[in-house]
């Protein structure tokens, strides 16, 4: 039974997004997870329908404004207005600034920042009509600290946090919260590809002395999505093992 309403989770086929989708499904939300490919969407459907047959995977490419608009209109028609939207989908195109091409810059800004704008554009209007909603944007510690080789990613994530605070102010009076969760280094495919030496160097900077688990991000998202967090808005919750204590 899903009695808490609908939760939309973008980028739900693997890593943190998958953990968030599964956690929200287990918490009693009806979950629609998105992937950029048909096979990814099918994989999400299979994983989530094991929890509840109402859950689904859909194709959504937030880097494409027209596809996003069409897919989210379809979502609203098929499933109604989400109670919770988790903007998790994101990409990396790492390169040293001196070598970073404009394409690499644009790709990351377009998906990680403009993509969230597009999803919110489609979701906020129905949420205002619904008179409630919860938007959770998955940022990154890199948005706060910066990181050599990730000028594009850091800019997009810092931008995302500023965007979230502005949107939070605009729609707080309509009972809609907007928050960010900023993971540190989490064990996922995205961090798996880092060279061993770099992983060791990262571990040395984490007071908790281990990488985070995707489930630990999902737990924070689940809290922000719960009724316990209705008075929290415009915040960025850092989940990083003490890596950056601000």
């Amino acid at each position, binding site marked *: 039974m899903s009695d808490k309403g609908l939760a939309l989770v973008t980028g739900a086929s693997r890593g943190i997004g998958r953990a968030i989708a599964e956690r929200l499904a287990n918490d009693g939300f009806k979950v629609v997870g998105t992937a950029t490919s048909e096979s990814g969407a099918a994989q999400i459907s299979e994983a989530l329908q094991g929890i509840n047959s109402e859950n689904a995977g859909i194709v959504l490419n937030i880097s494409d404004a027209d596809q996003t608009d069409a897919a989210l209109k379809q979502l609203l028609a098929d499933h109604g207005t989400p109670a919770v939207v988790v903007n998790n989908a994101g990409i990396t195109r790492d390169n040293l600034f001196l070598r970073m091409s404009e394409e690499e810059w644009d790709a990351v800004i377009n998906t990680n920042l403009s993509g969230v704008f597009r999803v919110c554009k489609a979701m906020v*209007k129905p949420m*205002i*009509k619904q008179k409630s909603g919860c938007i959770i944007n998955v940022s990154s510690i890199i948005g706060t600290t910066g990181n050599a080789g990730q000028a594009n990613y850091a800019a997009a994530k810092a931008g995302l946090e500023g965007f979230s605070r502005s949107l939070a102010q*605009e*729609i707080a*009076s*309509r009972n809609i919260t907007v928050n960010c969760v900023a993971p540190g280094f989490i064990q996922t495919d995205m961090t798996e590809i880092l060279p061993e030496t770099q992983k060791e160097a990262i571990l040395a900077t984490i007071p908790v002395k281990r990488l985070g688990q995707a489930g630990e991000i999902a737990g924070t998202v689940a809290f922000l999505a719960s009724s316990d967090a209705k008075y929290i808005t415009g915040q960025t919750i850092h989940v990083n093992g003490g890596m950056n204590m601000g």
Partner: protein
Amino acid sequence: MSNIEERVKKIVCEQLGVKEEDVKASSSFVDDLGADSLDTVELVMALEEEFETEIPDEDAEKLTTVQEAIDYIIANL
């Protein structure tokens, strides 16, 4: 025509939480009826729903009084 006028005024009352006798054709949503900028966006959304029409943002921005909203609906329905 008067039907549209009544429907528009009813929505204005509902959305802005004002009394019907306070809503005049010349009333400005912001200056007379106390709407903030988000209220006016919501008001347009409610009008779109009531009259099953889409009001483009560039038109919506020009609807600042009750009469302007009534005229727009009549012209575009």
